[in-house]
């Protein structure tokens, strides 16, 4: 693949408890190219989140290799700083810090990275504008709604201008209408800014709407069962939801997920 940003080779993760050994991820191979939006879909417990958490160095793999921009990060005790700063992570829940205002929450990574200069401060305001957060800038998280909170989580992940963004079911807790709206917003932002995105979801329609490529995962052990490339003409809009090709992709992917033996889910 040209301009490969992420490559994973034979990645496995085993969780050992007193009672059992769980193969959360087994021999996963995948790659993500520059500017691509790649989704990992599959039923709960198939190891989708585990994979991006391993790439972001939140958990260590049991075996296998992870390359980010050609650098093998599994060879380091902690992910190198320069690689880490290329990554933004959007969590399942907004994960806002309640003692910071909306603007301070968006700018929080800059404080940690010690990147609080005029250029980035202006960028914070720009992101607040893009995310429709300007009117809430002095509010505290307790005063805002769930949808706004999740938008703050998205903007916070983008504030240090990461080239790669991981999204771990970011809109899973929101209602369908709000989710579709945010899906389109995030798609526009990532496409405009040429971000490389790894998107985790269990919603097939959401994955088809957003992705360039989709990896379907199976459970017990967590593994990739199929890779499907999305090939749509024209821009991605919500009108795509009514197109036949969109429905065909959804049916095809649901079929692959359906082949996963759900009785084996731990």
């Amino acid at each position: 693949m040209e301009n490969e940003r992420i490559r994973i080779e034979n990645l496995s993760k085993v969780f050992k408890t007193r009672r059992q050994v769980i193969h959360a991820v087994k021999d996963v191979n995948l790659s993500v190219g520059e500017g691509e939006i790649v989704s990992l879909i599959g039923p709960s417990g198939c190891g989708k989140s585990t994979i991006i958490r391993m790439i972001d160095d939140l958990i260590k793999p049991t075996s296998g290799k992870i390359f980010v921009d050609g650098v093998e990060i599994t060879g380091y005790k902690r992910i190198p700083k320069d690689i880490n700063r290329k990554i933004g992570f959007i969590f399942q829940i907004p994960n806002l810090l309640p003692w910071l205002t909306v603007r301070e929450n968006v700018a929080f990574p800059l404080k940690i990275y010690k990147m609080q200069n005029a250029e980035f401060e202006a960028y914070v305001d720009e992101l607040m504008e893009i995310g429709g957060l300007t009117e809430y800038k002095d509010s505290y998280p307790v005063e805002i709604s769930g949808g706004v909170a999740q938008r703050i989580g998205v903007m916070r992940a983008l504030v240090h201008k990461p080239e790669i963004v991981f999204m771990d079911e970011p809109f899973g807790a929101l209602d369908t209408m709000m989710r579709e709206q945010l899906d389109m917003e995030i798609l526009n932002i990532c496409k405009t800014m040429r971000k490389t995105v790894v998107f985790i979801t269990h919603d097939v329609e959401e994955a088809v709407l957003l992705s360039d490529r989709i990896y379907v995962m199976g459970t017990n052990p967590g593994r990739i069962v199929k890779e499907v490339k999305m090939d749509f003409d024209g821009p991605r809009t919500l009108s795509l939801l009514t197109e036949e090709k969109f429905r065909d992709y959804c049916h095809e992917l649901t079929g692959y997920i359906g082949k996963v033996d759900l009785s084996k889910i731990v």
Partner: protein
Amino acid sequence: MSSLLEQTRAARVEERKKRVRGDKISSIVMPVVGIGCLFAVWQLFITVNNVPAWQLSPPLKVFGSMIFDFKEIYMNHVVRTFLSIMIGWCCACLVGVTAAAFMCNFPILNTMLTPYINFLCTLPVITLVPMMYVFMGVGQNVIIIAIILQSFAIVCMNSSTGFLNVPIIRKEMMVSLRASRRQILFQCYLPSALSNVFTGMKLSAIFATTTCVSAEVNGSAVGLGALVITAKAYSRTEQMCGAIIFIAIIGVFFYMLTDIIEAVFIKWKD
């Protein structure tokens, strides 16, 4: 959609403001009413039962003594007790939070110190004071050390609970940002645990007051605890009651001081 969100937000903010305003008024008025009732019942009890003043002074006589004898009798004792509690309590808060931060960062230290903290929390330090008087001699330093020993354990225990209850996903965000140990402590752990830290400080303010007065009762010549004992010896019940009220005022002062500091630091609280 955005106007609906805006309306929801405005309604929430308005509701919150109303609640805060109502809480503020009732938090001032209700305690005053409560205290007024207590003094009324006290005065009524004395009048109805014709209790002699040497047995129990009426509240008006007590207040008179507190005002007119303040400079001559109370001031020296009030200042001494106030200073002992302030120095001891401030040191205890500082030591308690620092110890909790270290204990939560280094699990070995946590395992090692937890039994001591539990021991100090459950043991009334006043039982150690006579021994400390024998070892160190009678003086303010013994009282301050007793306050620190009793109060820091409470602050430490509550702060540790706060540090240990930081949501895992919040810690993961800090790890994801590759924050340093210092950044994790000051940007995540401490603000997350602040509510618990202040709870510990409030409790320790109460413990500091009781420990200080108990230590003064045990052997000191100066301080409100000592004044209670001296006044009892001369059957000056109005001075005894006055000293007790001053002790209560000092205790409430430190408790409320923590409340004010908490309100300054925790602006985001719902």
